[in-house]
């Protein structure tokens, strides 16, 4: 099944709705809310590895890890979304995702509170991204999945981790 997750279109009311968002999502917890990432973006899930801090990067850049000999940057998703930071728990883990880079995909790890499950979300379970009332900036949200009584925030992970963003303070500092 091939899906175009990035494709969004505007309807007459100027509302952004998902073009074709149905599919499988990895869901995880962040500050008691449930988020989902397109399963095809997920490379692997690893436990907390020792992280080396990288200086002169934005606060949400947690550092780099050694993933079987590859150096992979790790993002504090809580910090990125402006949430309170919390102590790592036994359930804290790193989801390694593949995002679109300049030429090829880049592996980036995101730290989440807890990974829950993989959910299939059908078209009729989807709602457009809310403009207000979410703890996450609307530009990062593809839509909302409604499964049972749960609302799942489907993240546009490419946009969340847009790679220029990671070294942004450099430009800010020198501008």
């Amino acid at each position, binding site marked *: 099944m091939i899906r175009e997750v990035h494709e969004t279109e505007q309807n007459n009311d100027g509302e952004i709705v998902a073009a074709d968002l149905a599919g499988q999502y990895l869901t995880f917890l962040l500050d008691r809310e449930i988020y989902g990432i397109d399963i095809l973006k997920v490379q692997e899930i690893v436990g907390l590895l020792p992280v080396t801090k990288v*200086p002169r990067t934005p606060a949400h850049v947690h550092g780099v890890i050694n993933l079987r000999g590859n*150096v992979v*940057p790790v993002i504090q998703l809580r910090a990125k979304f402006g949430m309170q930071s919390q102590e790592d728990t036994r359930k804290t883990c790193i989801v390694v995702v593949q995002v679109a880079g300049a030429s090829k995909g880049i592996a980036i790890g995101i730290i989440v509170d807890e990974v829950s499950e993989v959910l299939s979300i059908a078209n009729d379970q989807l709602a457009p991204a809310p403009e207000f009332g979410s703890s996450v900036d609307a530009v990062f949200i593809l839509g909302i999945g409604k499964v049972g009584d749960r609302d799942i925030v489907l993240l546009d992970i490419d946009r969340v981790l847009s790679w220029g963003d990671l070294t942004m303070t*450099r430009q800010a500092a020198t501008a």
Partner: protein
Amino acid sequence: MDRSFVLSRIESLSEKIQRTQPSEVDVLARIHTDVSDLAAWAKSEAHPQAADVMDCIAAAIEKIILADTPDPVVTLQAITQGIVAFQTFVRDGSIELGECDAIKTLLADADAERIDGAGASQTIEADIGLIRDFVSEAREHLHNSDIHLLTIETSPHDIDALNAIFRAFHTIKGVAGFLALGEVQALAHESENLLDLARKGELVLTGGYVDLTFDAIDMMKRLIDNVERAINTNEPVGSEDGLADMVQRLKETVEGRLIPEAESIPKVDVSDGRVGEILLEQGLVRRSKIEAVLQAQSTRTPSKLGELLVKHVVISRRQLNEALEIQRAEGGARKLGEILVSNGVATWEDINRAIDSQEKTSPEPIGAMLVREGEVAPRDVVLALRAQQMHASASEVREAVKVDAERLDRLVDLIGELVIAESILRQSEAMSAVFSPQHASQIDQLGRITRELQELGTSLSMVPIRATFQKMSRLVRDLGKKTGKHVQLSTEGEETELDKSVVDQISDPLMHMVRNAIDHGLEASSADRIAVGKPAVGRVTLRASHKGSSIHIDIEDDGRGLDRNAILAKARERGLVQEGRAFSDSEIFSLIFQPGFSTAQQVTDISGRGVGLDVVRRNIELLRGKMEIRSEPGQGSTFSIRLPLTHAVIDGMLIRAGSERYIVPTLSILRSLKPGLECISTVAGRGEMLTFQEDQLPLIRLHELFAIEDAARDPQDAIVLLLENEGRRFGLLIDELIGQQQIVIRSLGDALKGTEGIAGAAILPDGTVGLVLDVSGIMKIGVDPGPGSDTRVRRSAA
């Protein structure tokens, strides 16, 4: 003039004249001045004979300049001999009257030949018996030289063979001079010069050089034939066509103006590529003969000591016969070696060498035996040897497998990961918990295999630097023509291997520096060089070697050297240096790497357009390398490049600042020191400065730069690393040096690439990621805060 000054002057004169040609009128004019001065000095010192000789020489030089001499080459030779005699006189303080007369006669003879109308021919006046001895001795030497040259063809660095050929020509030259055989002497002299260069390792006798030496031997054989004919018929020695050309070719080769072409290699189609087979295939020898020689090869007896000495031209056959005669007369009381030494014709060193080679001689190769038997011409054997080599290398290629470069990279990467995994395993605490001797030996085994794999992996992408050096020799030739400078390039360590990607990237900087050495380094003309007592031909040397885990490449010239004052003046003019302080040589020299810095008086076609050494240095630093300059005024300059062995592996120093660890490339570290409080001061507008050996250097606190909260704040608890980048030094305040180690450097990934102050990452032995500091980046943010690269200019203008 005092004696030592005279001696140095005559020495440079003597060297000068040997390289001068009759057509170089300007050089001759300067020599004339020197000679006149020396004549005046000899008069003032009351040495009328010596003064007389110099006057005659001065007159003879005038004649050459005025083209008033029948054969300027012969006259010049006589002059040279005269100057050498004068040199001996100055050194030893006496001159023999006979020698003065001999030289005067020589000069007069050279002049008189026109009156005879005999052209270049000579009559033989010396003792016929002596000449007969000379002819047979020379033939033996030349024959042996042919065979030694075959040895050199297969092993160009065989110093015994080189020495033997050199001595053969040297002996011929000496005797020919004594017998006044001018042509023989001239040819022997130039050949000797060529061989001397090979002996000193300044050129390698291969290909065209071997062919040229064969030509010289052949020509010499013909000259010797002429001499023999002349004594048999009692007629003047006939001149030989092509001699002047031959001498000229040798001379130009010695001066580095000519690189002799190798003869084309015959195409052979033989299955086993043996020399005998190749010669057979070309129809140069009969099979029965080869079989006979092979037979002789197997039943060969070791050569006798005397024969060996003659073969290596240590003694002449006559001397051997004399010694054997003495031995017989004494009834064999003394050994041959003892007699030779007591006769003063050989030293114990020669004898012992000969005995050594007597013991370890392997059977003579078939080619040499065929030549010795007079079956084939030595040149044909050489061509057969070259064909054999081509054959061999052609079959080597067939065994190679072409591999996709990407797969190779992947393999090398994986090996790198294996090395890391192995070291993590070795150091893990869980492992030491279950330690047993058996276990330890298995781990050791794994370690060994890993190490071997790593070496293999590294070698996969290694290529010798030879091809790059060869490119440079073409460049030197072209540049020599363009600038009109005589330049000789010599290379050392061509077999040094370095990473393929490094080879590709080193080529341009090298070319730039060779250009620079020729255009700016060497004197403007040969005359300028001669004037300061240097050989007319400029020398540029490229040298490569491995030292530890780095590669050193030197570009050395024997030119003017860097002009400290000119560089400093230029730097002051541009505001690149602070006024009123002393600079070390290396600081001054590193100024020439600044962008747009050129002290060339004029822009030439070749270099000096402002795209300069700064680009070279940037390229080298991109390869994580380093450049250094050494220079002596008037003696020349050496530009040294140090590069890590491969792109990926560098020597790093693991350091700590607070709870963070970083790696600093060892090449950037000058030294580390524990600063006293008095060494650190704050200068308004320039931040913290470190006083080090009377220099004020910027001090950067790593913990401030990288916002590390738990680092030592008191400099007395800290350590300062003295770092250098682009010739500028600064101090970096850290907490602790942990230790040195080799690391496999990798990119920080697309996402974090470009993080300021960080060059890359490496996996540390404990499995965590370590960050490699980017020294130039740190300097940029720490010393030159503010955007853009023009900070420096603005600061110095302020």
